[in-house]
């Protein structure tokens, strides 16, 4: 199959178009939302958007098999970069500390966030690992995928960047579900995770000394703020409280740009163009704006599902599902934090929040998904992930 034939296949796939349009739509909404509160950052985000489009185009070039062959190497390189962030003695000029976290590598012209790269590398690597295996159909067979998952998670947690680290586990579960892992295994693991979270939260209230060992003070504060926002509205729950206020104030159609800008500024909302961008969107465009954003994420999910469904290549299938899962889980956590359903985690809204690395990596995911969908399976191909139970 020639390169031109592949491009034609890409162009003819309507699901790819829908996904791309939704991603571009979300990015434009993001730039406008950032413009509401900080025109300078909006301009920078526009430039990053251009860069992301170039990177996305580049991601359309390599054949899926090449990408697959490179996936483990890419994960290895990413792990090395993550390790570099943690090496003591690396000068601040290379690994600066921002908001108490060492998450960036300063390349002078731009700041690279290796954890964003790790998201892509992890999905590619996991898909490449699982594509022809059946071991994950047994409970013990899940051990290796989880061990691979724990490598980037552990390194990202040390930065510390809890928000990003939280994405890997659920994404792995999504990939495993799509790959045909037994649902009762997945449900057991999920149940175990929920019970663990409940136990940890319980210790905050009933065994504070144990909680001090398990969680840092600011992490405990976030749970306290979630369950008692009124009590801590001026301290621990300041950020979620202000966020809820701004979302509620948006009502159905939101405020105009000028009024919304004044309102958000007067609330001194911390990180409005990163972790709280959904609040800015609902304040600016109201419930309608919020629902449109949710709808666009759903369009991306359905489009990716459609791409995966129409693909015969097991690697492509798992990569597309993995990217969809990663994007949707990140968006869900961000919005849930903003509307007060989850404690503050410091996680951005994909395509929308300000951040060059984030925007480039998310658009790269979309481009890679489209790229992988364009490749027909080798003939004859064996059926993938088809099990009787």
């Amino acid at each position, binding site marked *: 199959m020639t390169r031109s034939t592949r491009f034609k296949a890409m162009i003819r796939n309507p699901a790819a178009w829908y996904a791309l349009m939704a991603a571009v739509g979300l990015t434009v909404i993001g730039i406008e939302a950032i413009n509401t509160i900080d025109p300078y950052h909006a301009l920078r985000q526009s430039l990053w958007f251009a860069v992301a489009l170039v990177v996305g185009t580049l991601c359309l070039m390599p054949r899926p098999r090449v990408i697959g062959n490179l996936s483990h190497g890419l994960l290895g390189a990413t792990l090395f970069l993550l390790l570099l962030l943690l090496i003591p003695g690396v000068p601040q000029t290379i690994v600066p500390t921002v908001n108490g976290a060492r998450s960036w590598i300063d390349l002078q012209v731009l700041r690279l966030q290796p954890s964003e790269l790790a998201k892509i590398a992890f999905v590619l690597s996991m898909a490449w690992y699982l594509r022809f295996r059946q071991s994950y159909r047994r409970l013990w067979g899940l051990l290796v995928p989880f061990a691979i998952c724990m490598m980037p998670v552990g390194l990202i947690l040390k930065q510390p960047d809890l928000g990003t680290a939280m994405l890997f586990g659920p994404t792995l579960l999504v990939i495993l579900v799509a790959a045909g892992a037994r649902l009762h295994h997945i449900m057991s693991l999920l149940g175990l995770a929920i019970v663990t979270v409940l136990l940890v939260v319980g210790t905050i209230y009933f065994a504070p000394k144990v909680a001090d060992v398990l969680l840092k003070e600011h992490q405990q504060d976030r749970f306290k703020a979630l369950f008692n926002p009124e009590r801590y509205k001026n301290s621990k729950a300041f950020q979620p409280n202000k966020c809820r206020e701004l*979302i509620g*104030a948006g009502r159905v159609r939101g405020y105009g740009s000028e009024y919304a800008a004044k309102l958000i500024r007067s609330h001194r909302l911390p990180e409005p163009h990163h972790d709280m961008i959904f609040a800015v969107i609902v304040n600016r465009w109201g419930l309608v704006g919020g629902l449109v954003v949710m709808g666009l994420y759903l369009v991306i999910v359905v489009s990716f599902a459609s791409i995966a469904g129409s693909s015969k290549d097991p690697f492509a299938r798992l990569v597309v599902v993995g990217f969809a899962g990663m994007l949707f889980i990140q968006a869900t956590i961000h919005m849930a934090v903003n509307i007060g359903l989850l404690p503050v985690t410091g996680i951005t809204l994909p395509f929308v929040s300000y951040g060059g690395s984030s925007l480039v990596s998310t658009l790269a995911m979309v481009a890679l998904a489209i790229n992988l969908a364009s490749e027909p399976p080798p003939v004859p191909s064996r059926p993938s992930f088809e099990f009787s139970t």
Partner: protein
Amino acid sequence: MKRRRLGLLIPRMFHRRLVLLVLLACATTVVLALQTTNLTLAQGAALRRRAESLLVKSRTIATYRGSILDRRHRVLAFDRPSYDVRVDFDLLTGQWAYRQAYAQARRDPHWKEADARRRMALTASCQQGYDLQIRQLWQTLSQLTATSPQHIEQRRTAIIQRVHSYMLSYWRRVLAQWRRTFDRPPQLRDVAKRQVQEQQMAHVLIEDVDDRVRFAIERMKRSADQPSVWNDVLITFETERDQPWRTVAVELDASTLPSPLKREGSLSITVHEVGTHVVGKMRRKVLPDQLAANPYAKYLASGERAYDLKGYQEGDSAGLAGIERSMEWWLRGTRGRTTTRWNGQPGPRTDPVPGQDVVATIDIALQARVQAIMDPVVHGGTGLMRAQPWHKRPQNRRGKPLAHPVRDGEPLCGAAIVVEVESGQVLAAVSAPWQRPEHVSDSTAEARRWDLINDPWRNRVVAKPYPPGSTVKPLLLAAVYSEGRLAGQETLPCAPGYLYEHDPDRFQCWRYKHYGIHHEPLDGPHAIMRSCNMFFYQVGQRLGWRGVRRWLSGFGVGHSLPCGLLEQIATSGATGIGKKQAALMGIGQGPVDWTLLQAATAYATLARGGMAMPVTFIDRPVRGASTVHDLGLDVQGVAQAMQGLHLAANHPQGTAHHLNIVVGQPEPIFNIEGVQLYAKSGTADAPDLRVLLPDEQGQMVRQTVRQGDHGWMICLVRREGSPRPDYVVAAVVEFGGSGGHVAGPIVNQILHAMRDEGYM
């Protein structure tokens, strides 16, 4: 079965799993959408109101505090407009000069190519001019406000030290928080870049300047170049509380004083802090508990911010003592408030409401005279509040010499009150001392010691309990007659060991203790005249401990009286149980105490024939209905008590009749004519004065500093033609000795002062 059907519908497992995942995504989106809808629609109105309230900028409008007037409507305290000079913190520290110099140096064409050292040199060369500007600013302010440069320098240093201590405390907290969160120490810039609010605001450098200074500074600001130090100097409107009667010059007739103190002509005494315990003082900054109880702004349960325009803000002043404190809510005005919307449009406006005036019952001129009579710290005064050799202070107790008696010439502490019987209004109330003597400086250990012993900040009239001594006797006489436990002409014996054979030393008459002789059997009035202890032991026994407690309680002893001053205390009152304690309470000793206010209230009740009403310092506003009630005293009983008081003051054998300064040459205590006096002296065995003082090693140890008897004199005054006494004048002198000798001349001088002020 179901699975098979699903298998037929979607044959591939991968596709079934995809559908499952998409459905999960849809369900999650529905949950998110529902919560967003809940916030924007169900709670939207309330959240929008709360959010938009932040866009309304409000500014408060200052108000005035009400004035305090005396009974003749002379202004005792009022708010005077004034201005404070505030200076930006950077200007105080000199950082302003560096900032300006740095900004100027950056405009230098060589700045870009200069290295760090060259840049520092450039900045330093620019800074000299700005440093000079700051030095000139202090000089100009010093000249304009007539404040010494040293004072400005001291004030500036104090502000910087205070703010630095805030910064240090804040940085420590940030550091601790940082370590808890990140498990590693922060960089210096992570902590130091955080500023406390006080670093970004202007501080009061010079207080209370007038219009002339204000206009001069505003002129300087208008004509100042950019940048200029004057841009960071502010003039803010404040109010100062003024007390025009704080210092009064008084002329006293020295010829009416007891013979050792008597002089021809008059005494000129300048009294400071006139009426300080009654009028009170202001605290420059409101106390945290007042701030918490009545805040200007608070959050309601709904999360909205509510404003109480009368509430306190940080930096508000509030009443500290006296009427200023007790009538705080009446005097305190309600500030106004203007609001401006986000687009500059004016919002709702509330005009300020000035505080309301309070009319006190005191006569400030009489108050000044009484203070002049009772000033213990000013040399060249009357000398009545200094220990005199003829005060008959005890030198031993129960056969042992006193270790800490008051020495001759020492200043005495005490209190006096003048009450109008008809209205229950206080005309004058003095608690001495009310200030430190000049030789005791403000901050030394000597001043601390002086304060601990003499307690000049306490209003002794309402807030110090004293054993009443013999002054309680007329009240109990009226009570025992009213209960029918003593017949009209019945006499009681005064003999040693008469009451308790096994305790002969304890229950004896004062006369027997001092002179070894006893009184003849006495009836009620003569028992008061002679102040016979044996008689009143028996009165106490006849009333019983319950009766004594009930009657004294009826007279107001042991009760918190609604006098209008929050400083007043209830005292324990009469608390004795059993026959012996009833007997002791009969002579005003043992478990019984009262304040001077309670004593005056009780005597005013007696003068009204048993009609009890509270004594008050506030004329207007009237706080609630005045409660007048009849104690049910027998008319004959009251008459007997009044006769006894009259005899005590006017009969040569009365204990309130004369002073024995020179043996064999008695001189009358009262030398005022044209009025009828009913008086009772009292000499109360007082507990030792023990206070916590530093010993030689600097440890705080409770030490006995004074011993002896409290001297009382309570006098009812009836003007010619009045059917009953018009005024109660009472005085108590702590550890002064004989009541007749120490407190009697003070009451006499107060009577002269009342005459001079037109009350008699």
